[in-house]
């Protein structure tokens, strides 16, 4: 039995503020990344793409972990709110993963000399991207609301297995990609303090952008669900 959507999304009240915060923090992060952060001794200014690439990677992980949690929530409770959260996060995750791959490719050209190489991190990321494209495809091709949500939730639970594989692939296999710089076991981040602060601000800014997108997309999805459930009733 599918219940109608409960109280329309608690974040609706904070939605405008999320957008303002996302824009403000993005402006600060952009200034810090382009002006305030020092130039890298080895790579020069090229390294500044780090302030986009790493936050995008973090958001890809975050978005797909949210899909996993929302999928479990749907399977457990069958509340449509969880399905709206899953689809919203999956779409944003696919967008950010695509941008993550493109940003990595742009960084790879001047540093590695190639746009793409068969490196474990790159390949596993591309695989993760395809998995979630498949997830969205499964959703778009299913017609019944409940079946679509359930099947997508099952796939959302299975696909999360790829996230640790992507992150740890550089440790498990010989990789051209550098080892984890920030989220590494047994040590502080291998990064200059000013660079570290800039990276932290960038990650916060991108995370706020993610939540702003999520709130907007969920509002659209919940409205869509409401119409479907009304039509069914």
């Amino acid at each position, binding site marked *: 039995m599918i219940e109608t959507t409960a109280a329309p999304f608690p974040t609706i009240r904070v939605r405008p503020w999320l957008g303002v915060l996302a824009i403000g923090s993005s402006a600060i992060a952009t200034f810090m990344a382009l002006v305030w952060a020092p130039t890298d001794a080895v790579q020069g200014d090229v390294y500044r793409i780090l302030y986009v690439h790493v936050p995008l990677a973090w958001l890809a992980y975050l978005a797909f972990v949210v899909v996993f949690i929302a999928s479990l929530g749907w*399977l457990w409770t069958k509340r449509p709110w969880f399905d709206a959260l899953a689809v919203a996060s999956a779409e944003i995750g696919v967008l950010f993963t695509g941008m993550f791959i493109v940003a990595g490719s742009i960084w790879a050209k001047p540093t590695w000399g190639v746009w793409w190489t068969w490196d474990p991190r790159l390949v596993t990321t591309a*695989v*993760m991207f*395809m*998995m979630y*494209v*498949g997830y969205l*495809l*499964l959703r778009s*091709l*299913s*017609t019944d609301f*409940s*079946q679509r949500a*359930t*099947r997508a*939730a*099952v*796939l959302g*639970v*299975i*696909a999360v*297995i*790829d996230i640790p*594989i992507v992150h740890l692939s550089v440790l498990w296999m010989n990789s051209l990609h550098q080892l984890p710089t920030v989220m590494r076991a047994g040590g502080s981040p291998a990064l200059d303090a000013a660079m570290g602060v800039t990276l932290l601000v960038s990650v916060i800014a991108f995370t706020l952008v993610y939540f702003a997108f999520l709130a907007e997309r969920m509002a659209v999805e919940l409205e869509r669900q409401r119409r479907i459930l009304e039509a069914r009733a």
Partner: protein
Amino acid sequence: MSALDRALLVAARELAAERRHPDGFVAALTFTGLLVLMESLALGPGQARQPGVASALYWIAILFAATLVAGRSFDRELEDDAIDAILVLDGGREALYAGKLVAISVVLAIVALAAAVLSLLLLDLEVALAGHVVLVGILGVLALPPVIVLATLLALRVRARVALVPILSFPILIPQLVACTQGAAAALTGDAAAALGWAGILAAFALVYGVLGLTIVPAAIE
């Protein structure tokens, strides 16, 4: 009736249907043979005979064959709505998954055996460790179907199912495909330790996805 009995009943019914009308098996066998032949011709016999290349061509063909066998198996269930009768039974969902898994693995094993003979003859391959090749082959055949059956169930009664099943299952199956290819290549070249290592990985994948499928399939079917 225990869960195992129910699963074996579904598997026996599936194999009986396949024996009576072996259209899925024949299609998979023909397709696999054709794929091995075409890939070998496209690359040229010199390159296709290299153990790594020959193994990759063979396992990609088997992967496609597995999707064909699974697709045909579920088509049969849907044609006369037999699947609904199984699903309403107590424990029917688990039995459906486990039974299909057993039956599809058996059919795939026969296809894989025939394709292996074809590859060995066509490419005149030298086999250094026959026992290891068989071990990797058996475990490869067991490691692929759990994900493919799960993907087929997820795409059941969905538009464009034929395209959707590979899109859903192949990214998940990449580690298994690499293990199959590397394990078979190692066995062909005489690297026993590497072949056994890859075989172990395949066994782990077969177990993990088999258990995951059994756990999650009841939730996936409405």
